[in-house]
């Protein structure tokens, strides 16, 4: 079985994000970029599946500008077997990504798609669900545990009330959550091998997908700065402040 892992290139989680002076987006020039941390967890899970004999090939795919090939190389250096790069603008909407991935799935025929539950840049949390819907496949979202059982997968989902245990039919799309695993570092031998691993490049037009944006960003702003908290003397004062100042009760 083949596992497809879409990996997104995002601003590194250590970088303090700054809004552009003209409020059209966030500053990307000279900013350190890295693989979306949730996608790293997806790569790790795919590699573990392969190492335990549950998969025979791990293919990393990334959609975006030429620099996205660096993100694919990172996946290859972790141990993925092959990469696919789809040339597209950096700002591409989840629906367009899902449509492109659907075409990749049609060509590659993976048994599973492992993908981060969301990307840490726009936090959309849509691509995995949209992909499953377009494919008509089962989906397991916010997954923190997975076990393959023949043609189905037992997944543990992190939901508001606790943990939900589900069995999903394969092929399936699985969006992974933080606690699923701890991703490995790239190994030196794999770094040296990464460049020799195949990396196919294609454009959105090659896949016959319309990626024109459906949304318009009107303005991007910094969230308001958090104000310092206050200490209250007793419950009565707390209730009074909640009622009359915060106006939440």
């Amino acid at each position, binding site marked *: 079985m083949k596992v497809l892992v879409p990996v997104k290139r995002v601003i590194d989680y*250590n970088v303090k994000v700054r809004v552009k002076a003209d409020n059209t987006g966030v500053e990307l020039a000279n900013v350190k970029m890295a693989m979306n941390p949730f996608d790293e967890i997806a790569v790790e899970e795919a590699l573990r599946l392969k190492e335990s004999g549950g998969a025979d090939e791990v293919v990393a795919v990334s959609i975006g500008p030429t620099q996205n090939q660096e993100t694919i190389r990172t996946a290859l*250096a972790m141990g993925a077997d092959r990469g696919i790069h789809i040339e597209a603008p950096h700002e591409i909407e989840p629906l367009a990504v899902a449509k492109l991935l659907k075409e990749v799935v049609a060509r590659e025929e993976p048994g599973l798609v492992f993908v981060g539950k969301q990307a840490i840049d726009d936090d959309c949390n849509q691509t995995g669900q949209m992909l499953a819907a377009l494919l008509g496949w089962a989906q397991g979202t916010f997954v923190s545990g997975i076990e393959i059982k023949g043609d189905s997968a037992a997944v543990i989902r992190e939901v508001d009330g606790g943990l939900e245990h589900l069995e999903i039919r394969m092929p399936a799309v699985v969006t992974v959550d933080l606690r699923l695993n701890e991703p490995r*570092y*790239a*190994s*030196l031998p794999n*770094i*040296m091998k*990464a*460049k020799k691993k195949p990396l196919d490049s294609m454009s959105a037009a090659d896949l016959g997908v319309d990626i024109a944006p459906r949304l318009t960003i009107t303005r991007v702003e910094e969230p308001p700065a958090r104000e310092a908290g206050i200490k209250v003397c007793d419950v009565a004062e707390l209730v009074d402040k909640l009622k009359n100042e915060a106006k939440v009760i």
Partner: protein
Amino acid sequence: MQFGLTEEQDLIVSTVRSFVETEIYPLEDEIEARGAVPAEIGRQIRDKVLEMGFYAANFPESVGGGGLNNLEFALLERELGRGSMALTHFFGRPQNILMACEGDQIDRYLLPAVRGEKMDALAMTEPDAGSDVRGMSTTARRDGGDWVLNGTKHFISGGDHADFFIVFVATGVDDTPHGPKKRITCFLVDRGHPGFEVLPGYKSVSHAGYHNVILKFEDCRLADNQVLGAVDGGFEVMNSWLYATRITVATMCVGRARRAFDYALSYAVERKQFGKQIGKFQGVGFKLADMVTEIDAADWLTLSAAWRLDQGLPANREIASAKLHASEMLARVTDEAIQVYGGMGLMDDLPLARFWRDARVERIWDGTSEIQRHIISRELLRPLGG
């Protein structure tokens, strides 16, 4: 001329940086306070690095190492330089000199060192022989088929965790037109060998947790197969293999300076006085400008020296320049980073005071700044008959 990194080099840098940030930074305060690295923590770091295939990255693949060239290794060391040396010691870069191992030494020392089973430490300095290495008074004399060692070595870095020591001792004296010149031989000595004692060293202001030890030899009897390289050929093995260790010092200085600079830069933006960011005052802004200029200069000087080694070009002068400039730059940059922070920079809530203390030794070990200047000027003057 090409100043960019290859994809592989880029991945080496980002992987090592990420390792240091994730695995080393969180342990630093505790190690600094404790003044030692517990063996268990050392083993955990070593095991992770072994799993990543980065252990002994400076050794050729033919003996199980990572096969990095001098430039790539300098990049790796630069990223390690950001972290506490007491901890990054366990990232495992055995002394290259072990490539001089022959016969059964390969199985007893070289391969176990590359596999992370044994750690080594290098022993040259003596109480009366610092910059004047050849002035050493630890001796080995022939007795039957054996060698008998007597004397004391000190400032032996990393010695508390070492399983064996690479020790340079005098094995005779030659009369030369310039006066008597000692013959030096290199020996491999196991911890616990009779007549050999490892004693605790001095408490240093720099690199708490990365200890130095004192070695004592009292009629320590060694067989011929403990000689590394040729008898009386100690300087030859030293020159063939230890030539590049100054690049390690230089590049680690660059890594640490960048980390100190990152602190100063972010504080210059966050901290407001007199109603504006302190970075907007020329007094602070110009400091940042000078700091980054000096760091970049040291970075390129060091990488180009490493590149020269890889190209087989003469590099002695360039390596000395890199070591000299990078270590002196680190002293200035850590000092200025504290100045940007003001009083807060001296408190141990931040690592800046530690960087500042650690920086002091870099101008001393692996050849003082004065020795590096001596090397540089000698290389310049000699061809002109100087």
